[in-house]
């Protein structure tokens, strides 16, 4: 029973970090119509910026996390305005440049920091005991920050007109543009917000999980799983799906072992595609 609860908390912790990643991912898709293959790259970059600031420069951890968020958001902004914007109309090309950018990012990190995992651990140690359940304080901090960030993102989405634009774009991109929705002006902002979230997640999570140049690969795969499950471009869907993915992964890791959890998730995704291609909370998918 205690184990059950402890595992559930790990699931929530995983779910909240997946939610931050998937929110950004789905935001980029919903607004720009772009599948961001570089998402994992910003996650890794967030981790390394935080590592550099806190371990090498000796800054306090919260400052390092903030720096990571801002740095990834800034790079996202630059990438969007300088490269992505030039091919934004061609979805194949957007895929190519984000993928290429991911490779460049991963290689740059490798060149700068080397292939070894650096010594980077969460500054808060210790375990919170509730009855027989053990929860590391670090995970609780992660859950807290992630939930706060999710709330802020929701507020931003619905305050800044991003939400309205997303709903219109989901209905019909061309019509929304024709009707003068100034969605284009939102592109760099939305992209930077999303990459900043990925960087924030990386800064918070890599000291707990692992930091190495290639840890972005599985992040991308899990972002994909989450957004297919939740429905592409659906903000609420991504959030709900992220917690499902986190829970399944946590319980499968404890009770099934190995990588069976990921397999179970894939079967779930396949089933979803058969019975409800628009995802859990997504809108109707148009045949195309």
């Amino acid at each position: 029973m205690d184990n059950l609860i402890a595992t559930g908390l790990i699931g929530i912790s995983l779910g909240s970090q997946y939610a931050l990643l998937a929110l950004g991912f789905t935001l980029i898709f919903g607004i720009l119509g772009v599948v961001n293959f570089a998402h994992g790259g910003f996650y890794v970059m967030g981790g390394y910026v935080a590592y550099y600031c806190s371990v090498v420069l000796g800054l306090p951890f919260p400052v390092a996390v903030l720096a990571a968020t801002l740095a990834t958001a800034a790079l996202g902004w630059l990438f969007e305005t300088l490269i992505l914007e030039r091919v934004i109309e061609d979805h194949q090309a957007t895929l190519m440049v984000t993928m290429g950018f991911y490779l460049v990012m991963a290689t740059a990190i490798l060149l700068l920091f080397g292939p070894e995992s650096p010594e980077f651990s969460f500054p808060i140690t210790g375990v919170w005991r509730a009855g027989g359940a053990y929860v590391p304080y670090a995970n609780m901090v992660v859950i807290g920050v992630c939930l706060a960030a999710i709330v802020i993102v929701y507020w931003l989405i619905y305050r800044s007109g991003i939400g309205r634009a997303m709903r219109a774009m989901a209905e019909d991109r061309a019509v929304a543009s024709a009707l003068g929705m100034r969605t284009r002006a939102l592109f760099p902002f939305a992209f930077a917000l999303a990459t900043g979230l990925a960087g924030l997640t990386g800064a918070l999570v890599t000291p707990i999980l692992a930091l190495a140049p290639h840890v972005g690969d599985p992040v991308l795969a899990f972002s994909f799983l989450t957004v297919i499950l939740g429905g592409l471009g659906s903000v609420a869907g991504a959030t709900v799906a992220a917690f499902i993915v986190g829970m399944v992964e946590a319980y499968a890791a404890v009770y099934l072992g190995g990588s069976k959890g990921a397999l179970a998730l894939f079967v779930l995704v396949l089933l979803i595609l058969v019975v409800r291609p628009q995802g859990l909370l997504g809108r109707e998918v148009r045949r195309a």
Partner: protein
Amino acid sequence: MSNQASITRLPQARRPALLGGYEWATLCLVGFAFAVPVLTRNPQILSQTNLILIAATAALGVYIMLRMDLMSFAVPAFMAIGGYTVAVLSLKLGVTDAILLGVAAFVMPALCAVPLGWLILRLKGVYFVLVTFVLTEIVQLLLFEAAPLTGGSNGLVGMPAVTLFGIELMDNSQVLLTTAGLAFAGFTITALFTRHFRYEFTAIEKNDVLAESLGLACWRYKALAFSVAAGVSGLAGFALVNMLLTAHPTSFAPMSSVSYITYTIVGGKGAILGTLAGAALLVTATDLFALKGELSPGLFGLLIIVVTLVARGGVIGLAAKAAGRMRRASPAAPARVAPIAAVQARGVKS
């Protein structure tokens, strides 16, 4: 108008060619690989040729799907299915005949792709990209998990040498012959397939809404192509397993799909020759600059961005453009539009 009808003549229909110029050139080049073991015994050249052929055959899976504007990350998944099929057949059932194994390496992935294609190709294009990516991850996990069949993290080792008409193909040059045979089969299938359905594929690439309105069931052709692409990838998987003498999950790492995409895009997705050229150039470059593993992804990424931003036709597109310019510059020869120019001229389609 009715009396006009009697005098109106349509231009003569051109007889459709079996294959185009690029296809013939590509098949000749791939066929030339059969001669390499005769010409040289240099192990370095033999193994480079082997690697290039395997990379190019694998990249054909990307090329076929890109003909319809679909980006596939599923190549390593189907390579793995083809490669492991061969390994299991030869280890557990004692099948060593290269032709039998080749057929199995094609058919098995192609069959696996049928239900998947049916499932995902009726959805929007982006779903296809995402699902192929996830699929490759899952096949990777399955290879580790299904240990009784796949050997798990040990992989499958100790395969007997393949035979052709009872003759063992064991040493370096003979392994290259097997690879060359598989690559030639893969390129021939791809060339004939994309040529035969060129109207359908072009229509789906350029304007699928219009194609459907004229009666084309687009998703069926996409699913068919997905299956053929899977089969060709399986051939590459066979060649890889045969070269390494082992079937191991790491040979089919999900991120290797990015390399195959890079070969196709950088070489030029407008013609089958581009896939071969891209594989040859980049495999050689990786080797020349000793960019083993660590730095080559960065180079690939940079090339992908550059090609996407400034040279959509890739290397082949640039070459065709340059050739066209030279032809126009020389007054004797009449200018002709290179067929590859069509890649640059693609319209915006959302």
